């Protein structure tokens, strides 16, 4: 009981000594909270995106085949699909015509996707993903399904039709047959889905060509083998497999990306400044205080405990506040501070409707990167206190 009462007394002393230097400690707390907030927000956003990608893209095409020429992707002849017949194990090949449409009025980039959905896996269930309307029947021309952002654009123009310009500036108009649900926003927000014939007509792509081929195999464990066979058979193509897509999304928001480094660098700089301030020895005033406390019967361990409590409180509070604010920022405010950075100059702002990441590992990592080094940097130099001699508070020494 006595020991506990003593520790609480020491905690009281640490708190009042923090309070006495409240301006300095509050600024340290604010800076530290801001750094943890920044790092935690970054971690949570990227975690949520990575997690969502891994969950969602397990259904991506097993193999995507593109043709390369002069170092860039070009249209692939449909005849290539015929050549692939020689490879045993391919169960389905679906050509797609897709690309981007720059809307001059709003400055937005739309993704136009033309394909025969009836040939795709689960293609017959696509109507379930619509918030309103129906999915046009296979081969029917002149009607489109829109993502939420595109629907909003059409609506803002007070029109029932989506009007796009072909590259010869003639206009093509489409009936809006359906609108994708908000639940699929993270995938479909900027999409315009139409029949492959309409897409060919819009982009002026000759009938014998497509943008790429989606290839499905009978046995999913054979994806790698068949991808290699395709690459051997058609050397001018690039073969992207589903595992590669998932791998891309595992590393795409890494610490190595520029923004990650900026966050990390900021955190590191702030931390070094704090640590420098703390580690640069004791002031005369502090030495006097330590000597007085020692003479009055404080153990060296008691004085170290004061230091420890001070550091633990500042860094612990900063950690709790920073992480809490980061969660509110990412989940309730849709990562409002990061979105301009992540989506850049995109006109279509996808709402971050993501599965919230409450990953204990992330919190532990941030804890290890913030609180522990701060404790180390502030408590270890406090061994100085042990070198302050109690009798230096006396006149003769």
């Amino acid at each position: 009981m006595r020991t506990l009462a003593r520790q609480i007394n020491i905690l009281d002393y640490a708190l009042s000594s923090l309070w006495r230097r409240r301006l300095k400690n509050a600024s340290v707390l604010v800076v530290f909270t801001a750094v943890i907030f920044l790092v935690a927000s970054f971690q949570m956003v990227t975690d949520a995106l990575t997690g969502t990608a891994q969950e969602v893209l397990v259904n991506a095409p097993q193999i995507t085949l593109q043709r390369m020429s002069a170092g860039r992707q070009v249209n692939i002849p449909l005849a290539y699909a015929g050549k692939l017949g020689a490879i045993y194990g391919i169960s389905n090949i679906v050509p797609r015509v897709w690309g981007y449409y720059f809307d001059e009025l709003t400055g937005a980039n739309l993704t136009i996707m033309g394909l025969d959905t009836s040939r795709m896996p689960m293609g017959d269930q696509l109507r379930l993903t619509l918030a309103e309307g129906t999915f046009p029947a296979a081969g029917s021309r002149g009607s489109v399904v829109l993502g939420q952002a595109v629907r909003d654009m059409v609506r803002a123009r007070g029109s029932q039709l989506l009007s796009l310009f072909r590259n010869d500036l003639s206009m093509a108009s489409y009936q809006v047959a359906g609108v994708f649900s908000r639940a699929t926003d993270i995938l479909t927000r900027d999409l315009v889905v139409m029949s492959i014939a309409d897409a060919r007509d819009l982009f002026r792509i000759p009938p014998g060509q497509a943008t790429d081929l989606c290839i499905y195999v009978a046995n999913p464990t054979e994806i790698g083998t068949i991808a290699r066979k395709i690459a051997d058979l058609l050397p001018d193509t690039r073969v992207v497999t589903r595992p590669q897509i998932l791998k891309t999304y595992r590393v795409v928001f890494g610490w190595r990306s520029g923004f990650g480094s900026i966050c990390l660098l900021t955190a590191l700089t702030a931390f070094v400044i704090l640590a420098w301030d703390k580690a640069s020895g004791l002031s005369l005033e502090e030495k006097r205080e330590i000597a007085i406390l020692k003479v009055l019967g404080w153990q060296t361990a008691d004085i170290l405990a004061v230091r420890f409590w001070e550091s633990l409180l500042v860094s612990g509070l900063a950690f709790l506040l920073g992480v809490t604010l980061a969660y509110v920022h990412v989940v309730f405010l849709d990562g409002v501070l990061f979105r301009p950075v992540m989506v850049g100059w995109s006109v279509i702002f996808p709402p971050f409707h993501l599965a919230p990441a409450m990953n204990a590992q992330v919190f532990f990592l941030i804890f290890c990167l913030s609180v522990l080094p701060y404790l180390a940097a502030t408590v270890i130099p406090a061994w100085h206190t042990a070198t302050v001699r109690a009798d230096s508070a006396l006149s003769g020494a």
Partner: protein
Amino acid sequence: MLIELESVTKIYNQGQPNEVTALDSIDLRIEENAMVCLRGSSGSGKSTLLSIIGCIFPPTSGRAAIAGRQLARLPDRFLTLHRRRSIGFIFQRFNLLPALSVMDNISLPLLPLGVPPAERRQRARALMDRFAIRHRERFPAGQISGGELQRVAIARALVNDPPIILADEPTAHLDTGLSQVFMDLMAELHAAGKTIIITSHDPLVTEHPAIGRIIDIRDGRIHAA
């Protein structure tokens, strides 16, 4: 409490080029409830002697005992425990923490003893009443007058109710009036049964009627007892 020192020697920086012998085989016996002045110029070793009696550090060699308890070979931890319970210190310039309130300054020795806040306040207030500084309870120590400062320092030395009071050059920075008041307060404590040891070379201290004994120290040796 009886204080006994037997051939106590203190050497600083032993074995190094700047080795200094501060105390050279001192033999000294201070009876319980004595009021003693250690007189000597600066560098004479009187502060070192006070530190050894005050359990701040052990002697390099020799025997030191308070109330029959040997201190010479106690590790730092136990010296501190002993100091916490038996010794009250009054420093030159009083060494209060200027940012702390008078109340907090007086309670400082009670914190490591694990005394709960209510009892701390009660004990500190009793002393503040006794020394007429209760109205300064919440003032920072840096903002009160010299006379009050002195009484706060004495209150702090008494708060853990120690049998021995050690005062280190207490009048060095006080005017004559305050020095006189200080010595009268010490005499009062002495009358109440405390053992009091004061280092000083101030005649106001050495010639005070309550001082029972003057110990002259020069070059780490006791000259006349």
